[in-house]
């Protein structure tokens, strides 16, 4: 079966960014550009950008595994990999101190991501602590979900008053298309994890990134539903996310173009609720960031504690344009 055509997110793109020669050694010392020139990078901004007001703190994200992952997906907007220590693991104690602060601010739901969340040795204890104060969702690539872990997660979910949600990533309905994004052998392993979850009667949300344009179509969604039903998940659930042209993805497809920026007046009043940054923050071991997307941008770090980050934030990054144009929410 042929590999599907990747999406070109640059709707009005006129230039093709030259791709890097394959196989060059990028692990050298010093500053090295891995994505080619980013047109319209934040420093090039001169015009006024709209500011987003934090209306309520509903969703708190934790980069609980930092940028450490057992995969190195070609579309990863935080460029996670086994050797990426940009953000480190968070400890249970660190997470707990933010859970305490979050409760006082009326947080509604908690999300955990990485890297690969289950690489964090305290992940299950962290979920247990979180489920005492609110619903928790964990984003995983599924590789570390063996039978024992699935059974423990099931026990956790059953013992909790609040919902536990597990989101598993897959980027194609066959090994050929998925593995070209996520790495050799991942398709089969994810299917195995999904079957195990079905066996313990946990119903995960399959999370698909729109790396190929038909994945998000009605037919594309139906194919995923069929795949899940075939694995014994009789109430299939799916979340489709657009791609962010930053991190590894900037190299896979294209970096943002200079026109892909929000300008003052771009956002109608009715849209603020749809922008996740109007109701979320992201915690990493390095502090609190405006949203889950921009953790590799130092200027998106807003403070040390949640209370430091309740102020408005300028939407001056090109990725903000994606959230606006696609109405993205990373929430399930």
């Amino acid at each position: 079966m042929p590999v599907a055509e990747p999406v070109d997110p640059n709707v009005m793109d006129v230039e093709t960014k030259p791709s890097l020669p394959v196989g060059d050694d990028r692990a050298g010392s010093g500053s090295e550009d891995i994505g080619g020139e980013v047109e319209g990078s934040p420093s090039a901004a001169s015009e006024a950008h709209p500011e987003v007001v934090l209306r309520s703190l509903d969703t708190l994200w934790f980069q609980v595994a930092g940028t450490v992952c057992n995969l190195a997906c070609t579309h990863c907007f935080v460029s996670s990999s086994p050797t990426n220590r940009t953000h480190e693991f968070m400890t249970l104690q660190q997470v707990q101190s933010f859970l305490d602060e979050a409760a006082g601010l009326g947080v509604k739901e908690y999300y955990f991501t990485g890297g690969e969340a289950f690489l964090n040795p305290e992940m299950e204890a962290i979920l247990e602590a979180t489920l005492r104060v609110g619903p928790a969702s964990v984003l995983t690539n599924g590789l570390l979900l063996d039978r024992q872990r699935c059974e423990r997660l099931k026990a956790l979910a059953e013992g909790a008053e609040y919902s536990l949600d597990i989101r598993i990533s897959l980027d194609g309905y066959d090994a050929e298309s998925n593995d070209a994004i996520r790495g050799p052998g991942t398709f089969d392993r994810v299917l195995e994890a999904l079957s195990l979850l079905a066996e313990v009667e946990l119903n995960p949300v399959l999370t698909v990134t729109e790396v190929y344009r038909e994945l998000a179509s009605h037919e594309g969604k139906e194919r995923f539903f069929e795949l899940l039903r075939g694995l014994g998940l009789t109430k299939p659930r799916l979340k489709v996310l657009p791609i962010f042209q930053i991190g590894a993805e900037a190299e896979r497809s294209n970096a943002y173009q200079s026109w892909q920026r929000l300008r003052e007046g771009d956002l109608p009043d009715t849209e603020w609720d749809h922008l996740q940054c109007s109701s979320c923050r992201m915690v990493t071991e390095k502090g609190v960031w405006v949203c889950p997307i921009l953790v590799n941008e130092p200027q998106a770090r807003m403070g040390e504690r949640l209370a430091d980050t309740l102020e408005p934030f300028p939407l001056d990054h090109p990725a903000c344009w994606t959230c606006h144009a696609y109405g993205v929410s990373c929430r399930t």
Partner: protein
Amino acid sequence: MADSMDHKTFRRLTTEDDAFVREYRQRLTAHRGMATLGEKLVPLEEFRRAAASSGRALTEGQREEAASRFLAGPADSTPVEGPFERIAVFGGVYNNHFALEALLEDAARRGAETIYCLGDLGGFGPHPEKVRPLLAQGEVQVIQGNYEESLASGREDCNCGYTDPRDNHFAEISYRYTESRCSAEFKAWMGALPLRRRVRLGDRELLLVHGSPRRINEFLFHSSSPAPFLEAMLQQNRCDAILCTHTGLQWHRQLSGGDAINVGVIGRPANDGATHVWYSMLSAGRNRLEVELLPLEYDFEALAREMVREELPAEFVETIQTGWWTTCLEILPPNERAVSRF
């Protein structure tokens, strides 16, 4: 936008390509000692320094101040009704005039002084206009749901808040049916309904809303509305209890600062395999608010027959006859979905 997205071809990488495998292997080790700063690889220390110098670090006192400023709710001049000792509250009629008739009898029998409806009169069931005389007869005090807001403002859809295309397909059938059978005068009446009410029950003040105090179509489910979140909501709205509907599933959470109650809906069963529907009775208790979530039997077979005659979707009729939801399932949080049949 989607139509213009494929005018350029990227390199295709498949796992059959040696180049891909080589590149992927290299990606696994590319970050040794390095961090990603934007799209650049920089030494870890450089990223750490850049991150540390960004953002604020307030003092503990400033943090407390910032948090309390953040949590200060907007002023609310909604007049307070009452006081009462016992009220009945329900939501989501969904054109189910049979259940509404049963409710008026049941609430009177149980001694409710006043009856409140939290909105969503239309959708799902048959003959929207049959609901209105019953509301008048029972002197029901109504607030707007997203359905009333949409019908009164001429919206194209019900603004139910679904994302699944199948859910939206059925929501659209519902909305079109109700929209085309409501008189302009009925719609104008809906548009004049208040969006919230404040009611005194004994010495407590209750805030009545459709979805949540901040959004008409926010879903407040039991397993996704944690206590600290609801406590903050009570505090922001300066009330002793919040009463809402919109999700179709009733629950009550007792909090240190008061109560949060989803009063349920009388339009369709609560996805539990039983044909009855739910409403709530609230009484001014001595030390606490007394909350009863009450099942309500009605002639569901008569409703099902009317729905069939009106050629409403078989999926809707099935829900009325079996008590299991067949649509709008995607919005359910995992715990609520786990006990669902579909």
